[in-house]
């Protein structure tokens, strides 16, 4: 028996009945939960304290575009879970295909977000400005003040950190794909795919919350 098997073999005994790698990923995700709690909590507070600095949904932010982006991320979640289901059956080719799909959709999400940022900045909605005047697609450029600095700061911080998580996820997916291409995963060795999936779904989950509170409320 190898040392590795021994480590793992020890796991079910007094432990969690979940192998190390997966347990570690879950634990890490708990800290991610607290990180986003800090950011979202701050947003909620600032928004309640200074409602005047924030605008109604759709005034500044492009909701249809982001709804489409949300849809993309949901799709990438399902492709990810399909990749996992494939390797559970020992289907190497299926794993690779679904992973590739996930990478492409994930990258598109980042692409759309970058496009969104560029468009928003072009319209005058920047991360840092004392107060910005009537920007956005539905308002003339010299219109009334529709928001304050906090709006830009919180929007870009929250979505930016989420975007960074997605980008890191895409990189890790590429790594997983590379390993899948080398045939390193199998029906009894799929820990790497499973924790990749956990991370990816978590990022999707955070986006579900962010989309609602940042874009829709």
């Amino acid at each position, binding site marked *: *028996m190898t040392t590795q098997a021994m480590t793992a073999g020890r*796991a079910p005994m007094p432990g*969690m009945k979940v192998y190390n790698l997966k*347990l570690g990923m879950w*634990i890490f995700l708990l800290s991610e939960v607290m990180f986003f709690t800090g950011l979202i909590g701050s947003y909620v507070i600032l928004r309640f304290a200074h409602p005047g600095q924030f605008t109604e949904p759709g005034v500044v932010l492009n909701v249809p575009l982001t709804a489409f982006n949300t849809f993309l991320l949901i799709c990438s979640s399902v492709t990810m879970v399909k990749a996992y289901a494939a390797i559970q059956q020992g289907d190497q080719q299926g794993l690779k295909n679904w992973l590739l799909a996930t990478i492409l959709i994930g990258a598109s999400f980042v692409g759309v977000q970058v496009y969104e940022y560029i468009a928003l900045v072009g319209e005058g909605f920047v991360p840092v400005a004392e107060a910005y005047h009537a920007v956005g697609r539905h308002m003339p450029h010299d219109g009334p003040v529709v928001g304050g*600095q*906090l709006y830009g700061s919180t929007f870009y911080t929250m979505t930016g950190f989420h975007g960074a998580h997605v980008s890191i996820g895409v990189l890790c997916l590429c790594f997983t794909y590379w390993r899948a291409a080398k045939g390193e995963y199998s029906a009894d060795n799929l820990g790497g795919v499973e924790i990749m999936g956990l991370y990816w779904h978590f990022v999707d989950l955070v986006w579900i919350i962010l989309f609602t509170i940042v874009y829709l409320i």
Partner: protein
Amino acid sequence: MSTIEQEMVHAAEGGHHDHHELPFIRKYIFSTDHKMIAKQFMFVSLFFLVIGGLLAAMMRWQLGYPSQPMPGGMLLPDAMMAPTPNGAIMLPEFYNSLVTMHGTIMIFFAIMPLLVGLFGNLLIPLQIGAEDMAFPRLNMISFWLAIPAGILMLASFAVEGGAAGAGWTSYAPLSASGEWTGVYLGQQLWLASLTILGFSSLVGAVNYITTVINMRAPGMTWFRMPLATWALFITAILILLAIPVLAGALIMLLFDQTLGTGFFRPEVGGEPLLWQHLFWFFGHPEVYILILPAMGIASEVLSNRARKPIFGYHSMVLAIIGIGFLGWIVWGHHMFMSGMNPLLGTSFMISTMAIAVPSAIKTFNWMATVWKGDIHLDSPMLYALAFVSMFIIGGLSGIFMASTPVDIYIHDTYFIVAHIHYVLFGGSLFAIFAGITFWYPKMFGRMMNESLNKLHFGLTIVLYNLVFWPMHNLGLQGMMRRIYDFTQYEYLAPLQPMNEFISISVFLLVATQSIYAFNFFWSLFKGEKASDNPWDSNTLEWTVPSPPPHGNFPEMPVVYRGPYEYSSPESETDFYPQTTPPSNPPVQDLIPEPVTPTPEGF
């Protein structure tokens, strides 16, 4: 032995690689061995402990001899000292940097890595019978993230504008814009450094938690775990959940500083109190991060040196968990005067009061542990007993501050400074002395010199109290903290003699520490060779050679009983190691469940 046990042991033997010598760089620098990483953390954080102590000594010069030329001050750059014909006088902005960096370095770069980095790494795998951490490579990364963080922190002294000067709590908006302090880059480095360090701690915490949950040896049930491991486990959970909140806050503050966003800057609608809430939501769990492992270490040493089972093991565990949980709902006690809703103040007062209860349980259990013991007063025991008695003082002064009306007067005075140092120096640092001395033979295979240690102990406990006890009195006279020259206030001027007295004691205290440093290094080479189990201890780390080999346990240990069976009538000696099979055959619950191999992804 049951068949399953035999199989386990067999698997362990068969699975054990013959470890060939690793190249120097893999063995000492980029090591993935938890014991080596523990030592790396130890050396780095002892270095920072010395730096923090020297910063304190400089501060005390200014406080003992306000605005008089500081010896050696001419050597420091003009940005820190104002040269005069008689010598150089400390500038107020440098004093602010000193306070800030002293607090930051002591908490984040000395005590926390000593307790969590050193003892977490050293003890967790050894005490639960694992051959290493769950993720050895992550463990290495955790250490190597701490190094750039430390370098950035120290480098900030050398940059334009000096090091951060807004206190270790970095209250916004003072810290949010260089406009207010004149510190731009220094503050940003401070924020960046702590963010990186936070990541390091986080990675470590993931590792510890996984290891404790999943890698315990057969028979090592939750309630057979040594209290040190229990404490480190709960500490890791606190780190896991508290640090990300700090990280979020740090990053937002960094954006405020560098990009000009407005999270904490009221000019553009930000909320200064939001920073305080986020900081203390992390900060109070943080202070328990700094005391829980110390409590665990003390429990270990007290029970062992009193040769007596720990009194009330289960309530000790529950108290650790209780402190860990209650620690999340008391943070507002740092904000009684902050402009926070006064009704919230009352709720936070009540929860803060409640947290004294688990601490009381621990204290009384320690006392009951030494009661009717067979107390061996050697140096680890002396340090551990000092921990208990000093923690009582620090904890009791916490009650004054927890009472909101009393806190109105003593908040932000030296009474708080006294409290901090009674819990952190008298508590955490004495426990660290106890721990290092106790596990030194396990780490290095040699004993520390007992006489030098006793000398160090005697001088330190006396001088330490001469330094910090009078700080209570200073606070009661109304002396504010973080104050560069208290003689500016007429009513504080009469406190000069007492401050001078404190400062002189500090200089002696700092000098005394060189005894420990000398002993530490001298014993590395000249210390008496240690046996595998010099303290006749029960826990698993003492069943392996000193220092333990790579992979720790030559064969998988099987645990039969709790860790504190000292003076048990069942055993001939006054100790009864966890791995010694009982004379009568094992009972049912000792047999581990069947083993199913599971895939590992890395």
